[in-house]
């Protein structure tokens, strides 16, 4: 067989391959987006003469000292146990809310010495100036998680979905469904377990 110079490779389809790869990467690459815990700061209230009196049993005090040790309701605790403790406190429903309604959706122990109603239950988080920010966020995350777990439970019970998914749907432009109704439902859930997480100013020493 006679040896000939190799014929030139047809490069016409190269562009197609390139575009195929280009489109593949376009579809699969996600641009890194920052994520984080969204919180609202309290407004600065003008100093009033009669401070609001909150019963001690409706307060869930979380202290974080400068050695990153956690003190919850005067007992030392590990961060991994905090979520459960906060949930038990919020979900207790021992008594009535401000307008005298019982908490009929609470599944807690109904302990009269713990919180009256999720509407009244307040978690306060106090930290030291020298607490590390990493630990502080860890604690903050657990407390927000406690609320989210309870809200998810209620969303499951009422609407057979999760609160997280409802929030995701609200931001989804392609959501197939009634957005106003969804917002209404989100507000209902938020009202069942209102996020009352107060952050006292740090102790200076």
């Amino acid at each position, binding site marked *: 067989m006679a*040896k000939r*110079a190799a014929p030139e490779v047809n490069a016409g389809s190269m562009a197609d391959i390139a575009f195929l*790869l280009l489109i593949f*990467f376009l579809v699969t690459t996600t641009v890194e987006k920052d994520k984080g815990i969204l*919180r*609202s700061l309290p407004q600065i209230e003008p100093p009033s003469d009669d401070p609001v009196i909150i019963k001690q049993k409706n307060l869930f005090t979380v202290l974080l000292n400068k050695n990153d040790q956690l003190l919850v309701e005067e007992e030392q605790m590990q961060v991994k146990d905090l979520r459960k403790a906060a949930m038990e406190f919020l979900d207790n429903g021992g008594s009535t809310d401000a307008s005298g309604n019982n908490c009929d959706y609470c599944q807690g122990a109904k302990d009269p010495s713990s919180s009256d109603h999720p509407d009244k239950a307040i978690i306060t988080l106090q930290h030291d100036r*020298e607490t*590390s920010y990493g630990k502080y966020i860890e604690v903050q*995350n657990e407390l*927000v998680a406690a609320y989210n777990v309870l809200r998810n439970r209620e969303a499951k019970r009422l609407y057979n979905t999760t609160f997280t998914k409802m929030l995701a749907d609200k931001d989804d432009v392609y959501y197939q469904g009634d957005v106003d109704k969804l917002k209404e439902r989100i507000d209902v859930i938020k009202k069942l377990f209102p996020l009352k997480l107060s952050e006292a100013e740090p102790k200076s020493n």
Partner: protein
Amino acid sequence: MGKFSKKKGGELPPVSTASLPDIVFMLLFFFMVATVMRDTSLMIENRLPSADQIEKIEKDRSMFIYAGKPSAQYKNFGTEARLQINDKFASIENVQPAVQEARAGLRPELQDRLVVALKVDENTNAGLVSDVKQKLREINALKIMYITNVKKVE
């Protein structure tokens, strides 16, 4: 014998370079898409804490405040954690003007929805962060977001 001499004379055809532009364009597009534009260069250490109860940030209505220890090349600023706003070190007094400025730069309908994103190194003292939060409360910039990494759920 003639066959051999023919082979010696025949040279390999040059490799076609017609597809080279395609490859280059492909790479260009890929990097255009995959690269995150960094609008500020960090002058501080910034190892973010991790959390799992997180939401996405909405870039069109947020401004960033960084905090952490000055990084190795800015050693002369000491080892105490500092704030960084835009491209320079800032003190706690600079927070309010910077936030006002950021708010004024937003579209009118978003101005009261400004989110201040705090990118703080996890080894910073939380006291610095609460100073910033106090300053933000004073000018009624109440929505904040603690930027974190995504914690993997075991």
